[in-house]
C-alpha cells in the first residue's frame, strides 16, 4: 500500500478531478442541476449501480470478477415475487431465495477456488445459467409483478427519511458494511493480500480458498439486495434487465473509481467516486435532453479517457507484467 500511495497522481484522483470538473460545469451552466433534490435524485439513480459495485469491488480487490451479478439481481427478485404469487408465505419465500442466492455465490466461489476455473468464465457461465434456469424453469414471463396483497408491504420506493429516499440509505448502509468488512476485519485484510499476491497470501496462511467462496457469496448477497430495491421500487421485476448494459456499467464504475482489475487496490471509496461520476454524467445529460445514443457515446469516451490517462501515468512494465492478465 505504501508503494501505491507514493504514486502522486492515481486514477482515483483523475476520476475525482473529472467528477468535480463536470460537477462544477453542470452546476454553473445547467439550471436545476445544483439543487438538493436533484442531487439526492442523482445519488438515488446510481444507488442500485453502486450496491452492485460494492459487491463487485470486493471481488475485484480479491483479484476476481463477478459477471453474474445482474442475473442474480433479476432472478432472485423475480423468483421471490413468483413464490409470493404462488401463495408461499413471505418468510418462507425469503428464506428460500436467500438460500439459493448464497448457494449460487458459493458454487461460483467453489468452482473458482477449488476447480481453479478462471473467475471470468465461472461467473459468465453462472450468470447465463442463473438467468436461463430462472427464466425458463421458474417463471412464465419476462416480468414478475408484485400482486396487490403484498404491494403495501413491499412498496419500498415511497419510503423516505428526511426527504431522502430509502435507496440512498441502503446504498450508504451497504457501503458502510463493506467498508467495515474490508478495513476492520481480518477477512478484509486477507482480501487485499489475496489480490496483491495470491501465492504469498497462501504461504503466510491465509485460507485462500474459503476466502474466495466468501467473496463471491458477498457479491451474490449484495446483488440480491440490489434486486430487492429494484423490485421494491418498480413493484415488479423485469428479467430483461440482464440484456441491458448494467453489468458493463457496474464493472466500469468499479474500475473507473480506481479498483484495478489486477486486484489488491482501492476500497469502497473508489466505488462511490466511480458511481458518482457516472451519476453526474447521466443526470447532466438527461437534463440536457441528449439523445440516448449520444449519451452512451459521451459516457464511453470519458471512461476511455480516464483509463488512458491512468495507464499513461502508471505505465505497465513488460518485465513485471503478470502472465495471463487480460
Amino acid at each position, binding site marked *: 500500500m505504501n508503494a501505491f500511495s507514493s504514486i502522486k497522481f492515481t486514477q482515483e484522483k483523475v476520476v475525482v478531478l473529472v467528477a468535480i470538473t463536470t460537477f462544477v460545469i453542470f452546476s454553473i451552466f445547467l439550471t436545476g442541476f445544483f439543487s438538493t433534490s436533484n442531487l439526492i435524485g442523482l445519488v438515488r439513480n446510481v444507488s442500485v449501480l453502486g450496491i452492485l459495485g460494492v459487491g463487485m469491488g470486493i471481488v475485484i480487490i480479491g483479484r476476481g470478477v463477478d459477471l453474474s451479478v445482474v442475473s442474480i439481481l433479476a432472478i432472485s427478485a423475480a423468483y421471490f415475487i413468483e413464490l409470493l404469487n404462488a401463495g408461499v408465505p413471505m418468510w418462507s419465500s425469503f428464506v428460500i431465495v436467500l438460500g439459493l442466492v448464497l448457494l449460487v455465490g458459493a458454487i461460483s466461489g467453489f468452482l473458482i477456488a477449488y476447480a481453479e476455473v478462471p473467475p471470468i468464465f465461472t461467473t*459468465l457461465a453462472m450468470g447465463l445459467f442463473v438467468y436461463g434456469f430462472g427464466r425458463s424453469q421458474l417463471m412464465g414471463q419476462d416480468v414478475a409483478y408484485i400482486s396487490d396483497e403484498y404491494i403495501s408491504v413491499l412498496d419500498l420506493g415511497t419510503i423516505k427519511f428526511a426527504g431522502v429516499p430509502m435507496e440512498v440509505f441502503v446504498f450508504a448502509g451497504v457501503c458502510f458494511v463493506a467498508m467495515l468488512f474490508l478495513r476492520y476485519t481480518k477477512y478484509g485484510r486477507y482480501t487485499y493480500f489475496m489480490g496483491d499476491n495470491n501465492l504469498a497470501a497462501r504461504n503466510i496462511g491465509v485460507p485462500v480458498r474459503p476466502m474466495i467462496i466468501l467473496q463471491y457469496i458477498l457479491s451474490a448477497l449484495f446483488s440480491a439486495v440490489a434486486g430487492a430495491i429494484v423490485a421494491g421500487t418498480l413493484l415488479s421485476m423485469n428479467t430483461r434487465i440482464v440484456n441491458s448494459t448494467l453489468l458493463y456499467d457496474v464493472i466500469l464504475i468499479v474500475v473507473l473509481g480506481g479498483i484495478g482489475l489486477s486486484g489488491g487496490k482501492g476500497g469502497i471509496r473508489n466505488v462511490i467516486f466511480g458511481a458518482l461520476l457516472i451519476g453526474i454524467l447521466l443526470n447532466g445529460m438527461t437534463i440536457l435532453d441528449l439523445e440516448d445514443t449520444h449519451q452512451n457515446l459521451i459516457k464511453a469516451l470519458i471512461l476511455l479517457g480516464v483509463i488512458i490517462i491512468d495507464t499513461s501515468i502508471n*505505465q505497465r512494465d513488460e518485465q513485471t*507484467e503478470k502472465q495471463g492478465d487480460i
Partner: protein
Amino acid sequence: MKIYEAISKARYNYVPDHILGELLTKRWADNVVPLLFLLLTIAVLANLIPGFLSPQSMSDSGRQLGEFLIIVCGVSIVMIAGGIDLSVGSIYAICALLAVAVVNLLQWPIPAAFAVSVLIGATFGLLNGLLIGYLKLRAFLTTLITFVIGRAIYDILLDQLGTPIQLTYVDSPLWDFIGDGSVGQIPVSLLFTAVVLVSAHVFISRSRPGWHISAIGGSRRSAFNTGINVKKVVCLTYVISGASCGIAGFLFGARLNGTGPGTGIGLEILVLTACVVGGISLGGGRGSIVKGMLGGLIVLTINNSLIRMGYHSGTNQMVLGLMLAFAVILDIRWLRNRHKVLDKVYVAPVYTSMNPALSALPESGTPYALNSKLSDTELIGAGEIEGPEDVILDEHDHLYCGTRHGDIMRFFAPEYKESEIYVHIGGFPLGLAFGKDKSLNICVGAMGLYSVAQDGTITQLSAETTRSYLSVVDDARLRDPNDLDIGSDGNIYFTDSTTRYDAHEWATDSVENRPTGRVLVYDPKTGKTKTLLRGLSYPNGVCMANDGESFFFAESWECRVNRFWYRGIKEGKMECVIRDMPGYPDNINRASDGNFWMAWLGMRTPTFDLMLKRPATRRRMTRRLPKDDWLFPNINTGGVVKFDENGNIIETLGDLGGKNHPMVTSMREHKGYLYIGGILNNRIGRLKLQGADANWTGISSYWGDNA
C-alpha cells in the same frame, strides 16, 4: 512357459497400450474432446429434429454459421496472443450497416462494399490495437469500453442511415448471390469462411507473425526479451479481429440486406463461449483455429437447435451456461493433469523372456568371466569431460569424443593432456566414425546424423527417414541415433535405438522393453535416408565386418549381436551371431587381429530378467513410484568383449571394483592401445594391449594406409 506368462504376454504384447500415450503426446489430442462433443451434439440433434441433416437445413445453418465462425476465428487469434476482444459485436454491426449503406445508398460495386466493410472493421480493430498494444491498456476493460462506443456509433449511424436505406432497393445479382446463392449445395458465405479459416490456420501455424502471436501468448515477457515487437504484434491481432468482423458484417449485410437495433447484441458472449468450449485458453498460450472452429460449431448448433425445437426463453442461456462451465472445468482439469496422465500412461511395458546366459562371474570359467583388467587404465581428461559415449582417433593420433554438452572434444597426441572443443553441435553426440574423406560422422542423440569436415564445418546429413503410415508417433524423426559405421558402398549405416523415447530416456526404454528401434541407411549420393530394419530391441553399436558385404549390430535389451548383409549374395539377410549374453551390448568396433571389440554397458541381473517377465509389475512400478525408485537394468558393472566373425567369444575385460570404468559404452583400438569411453563416465581410459599390432589404426583398416 507358464499359463500366467502366456496370458501376460498376450495382454501386454498384443494390446497396443502404447498408442494411448502416443496419442496424448499429440498437440491435436486436445481437440478430440470438443470434436467428440460436437459429433455427439449432432447425433443427438439429428435424432431430435427431423430434417436436421437435410441439405437445405445444413445450407441454411451454414450461412449464419459462416459469419459466426469468421468472428470466432478473429477472436481466437486475439486470445492466442493472450488478449480478449469484447467489441466484436459492435464492429460487426457497424460493418454490416455500412456494407448495406454502400450497396444501397451509394450504389457502389459490391467489391467496393466488401473493401469498405473490411477496412472499417480493421480500422476499429486498429483503435483497439493501438490502445491495448501500444498504450498497454487492459484488453478486457478497453474492449468493454470500445464495445459501448461502437454500439453508440452504430445506433447513431442507424438513426441516420436507417430510413434512407429503407427507401432504396438495389438490384444486384452479385449481392444476392453472396447473400442467398450457393455453389452446389454450399452457401457462398461458407466458401468465404473456408477461405478465411484456411488462411488463418496457415497464418497462425506456418508464418512468422503467426509464431510471434503464439510466442507472445505463451510468455509475453520471453517474447519481448527475444526481440519480438510485442506492441506491434498485439496490435496486429486486434486489427485481424476487426477485419474478420468486417468480413462477417459484409456477409450479414448480403444475407439480410439490412440491419436493426439488435444486430450483433450478445455476440461477444457467444463468441467467447465458442472459443473456450473449443479449448482456447484465456490468457493465451494455447489455441488454434481448429479449436475455435469446433467451439463455434458446437455453440451455434446448440443455440439454433434449441430455438428450433421451440424451447422457452432462457433455455438457451441455461444450456449455454452449463456448457461453458462444463467445458472450462474440463479444459482446466485437462490442462493441469495432462502431463501427469501422460507420465503415467506413456510407459507401456511388454513381456520379454530372457534365456539364461553363461555366467560372467570371475570364477565361473566361462569365456565371459570378468576380471579387473580395466581397473588399471591410464586416464585421459578425467573430470574434464562428461559422457564420452564413443571415442575415436584420427590419423594424427588425436583423440575425439562427444560430451553431454553437445561438444566434440579433441585431445592432442601424444600426451592427451591438452584438449579443445573441436566443434559444438548440440544434442548429445554418440557414435563416431571417420569417413573416407577424413570427415567425422556423428550420430547426435535427439538431433540426427551429422558430419564434420576437416576444416570444422558441420553438415546435417539426415534428421529424418520415411514416415511409416501406421505409427502414431512421428517415426520419421530420428530420436535416438546411436551408432554408425560406413559401408564399402560409401553408405552410412546407423541405428536409431527407439522411436518412443528421446536419447536421454534410454533407461526408461529398457523398462518398457518394447522393440521399436531401427537400422537405417544414409546414402550420401542421394542424401536420402531409408529404414532397413525395424522392430529391434534397442539397436546400438554398428561395425562393418571384414567381408565388405555385411555389418554387425548389437541389440542391447535382447543381449545379442546380429549380422546383416547389405550387399552381395546374402543381401538383405540377417543372422544372429551372439545370443543370450550376460551383459547389455553397446558399441562394436574392429580389433587389429581381425576380430571385434564390443562394449557392455551393464550386466544382466536375475531380478531384472524376472521383471521383464512381469509387465504388470513394471507398469505398476512406473505409475506409482517416482523414477528414482524404479528398478532399472544394472549399469554399474560393464566390460569389453572380443569376438570373432562367427560369434565366438575370445576375451573379456572388466573393472570389477568399478574403479575407473564401471560402465563401458565404447572402446577403440589404436596403435596397440585400447581407448575406453562410457556414457555416464567422466573420463576416457587407455589400456596397453599385449601383443597387439602397434601400427594398426581403424582408419587404415577401413580406408587403407594411403587414405
